[in-house]
């Protein structure tokens, strides 16, 4: 099992979620995060019309634990939902998961995903 963590734009959440569901991946959860990377920051304006930049940008993190064979489809789904070709589109990280347990039943392993 692998864990996919994708940091994306908040407004990409729904398209990505839809793509993942279409790809058969329905178990997931999301978190609000603030990101910092190549994207320079968000420009805001003061009430005197002066501009300033905030260097932490609101992002959303989608996390889903999936079977190994689902990794590539998941990555593709996320990219197709989140890509706008501008910096700040986000990153996807893949890590290994050793065990998964369903609280309701105590079942373990791939079936619980």
């Amino acid at each position, binding site marked *: 099992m692998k864990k996919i963590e994708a940091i994306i734009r908040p*407004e990409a959440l729904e398209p990505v979620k839809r793509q993942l569901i279409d790809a058969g991946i329905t178990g997931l959860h999301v978190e609000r995060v*603030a990101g910092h990377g190549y994207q320079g920051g968000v420009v805001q304006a003061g009430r005197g019309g002066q501009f300033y930049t905030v*260097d932490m940008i609101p992002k959303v993190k989608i996390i889903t634990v999936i079977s190994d064979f689902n990794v590539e489809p998941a990555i593709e789904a996320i990219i197709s939902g989140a890509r706008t070709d501008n910096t700040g589109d986000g990153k996807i990280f893949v890590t290994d998961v050793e065990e998964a347990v369903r609280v309701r039943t105590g079942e373990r392993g791939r079936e619980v995903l």
Partner: protein
Amino acid sequence: MDSGNTAWLLTSAALVLLMTPGLAFFYSGLVRTKSAAATIMQSFVMIGVATVVWVLWGYSLAFGTDIGGFVGNLTVFGLRGLEGDGLLFMAFQLMFAIITPALITGAFVERISFKALLVFTVAWITIVYAPLCHWVWAEGGWLLDLGAADFAGGTVVHINAGAAALAGALFVGRRRDSVAETRPHDVSKVVIGAGLLWFGWFGFNAGSALAADGGAVNAFVQTQISAAGGLVAWTLLSWKYTGHPSIIGAATGAVAGLVAITPAAGFVGQWPATDGYLNFFPALCIGVVGAVLGFFAIRALHNWRDMDDTLDVFAVHGVCGMWGAFATGLFAVAEIGGVNGAIGGSADLLWRQIVGILAALAWSFVLSAGIFWVVQKFMPLRVSETDEMIGLDRSEHNEAAYEYDEIGFGWDASDTIDEEIPSGTEALKRLLS
């Protein structure tokens, strides 16, 4: 006007002004976070825009010398020659001209273009509101001459706003992501908004007596009873239909009761006229029935796909406004407002009320639709799909409603300055040098 009446009317005008921020909160609490600030702005900006329009030409179109029962002329353009009581009446009426367009905005929150809204508003006050106001309240207005009764704005404010909302919902089109439902992001904002509306409504209704006398007292009490009836009824309805007593329902019910009593507040009260044994009855009935009608109107309209009147302006203001105008024709008693309604023995008033309702409805719907139709020739009425997805706060105003999160907004390394902060006297020296 003596000092007491002046004091009450000044107070009332201030109270009605406060209703618009109250409405801004009421509406904002009902939408999603990402358009929460923009929704506030859509009401708040009306205080500026409507005031300017009203003091320039709006008041004159409404209350200038009558032209054919239909509209006022420009004799009082720019407040020409107004002072004292006339000026006070202008100010009181101004507050109504502010909140009415603000009410309409509920129909197309979360997607309207701010620019289009401003253009629509200026045109709407001029073309739709001012004439209708003239018909009903100005000397020579044809509905006034006909004898239709509208104490504090059932037709002018509520039916008018409701019908325009209907046109707006049709022309602006439904939200892209959620046809039928709105998801309130802050219940407490809804209730405080309703509280401020209720508070201000005493100015709206009891102020419409234009004096601090028994008529104002009567309007005050009718207002309170009807609002309470609406509150209780809607709470119980939501309890019955969803299994939980809804807080937003309670707030909405109060507003429904307030809307319904608006045209009636100065005409109903004593009941039955003969011995007044049930004086509480007409207002309670108007409030309760208003809530029931509003509740089922929302249910009915939510099945209608093209009509995404998001915050139910037509259901709450249009339907309850019509009911209130109709109920005035039922319950009016000569002892209170000088004219009897159908139950009091005279069917005349009822027919006049129906004429008033239909005239306001048709006038407002057709002309509002017309204005939208023209405006959309020049600019899009709604924002782009991406902007709608991002939310109006960021896309239209570049100002998120909330940045509560300290993360990323709290203390920003890039800004930090390592230099010493000068002492006060040091800074003063630099200033003077």
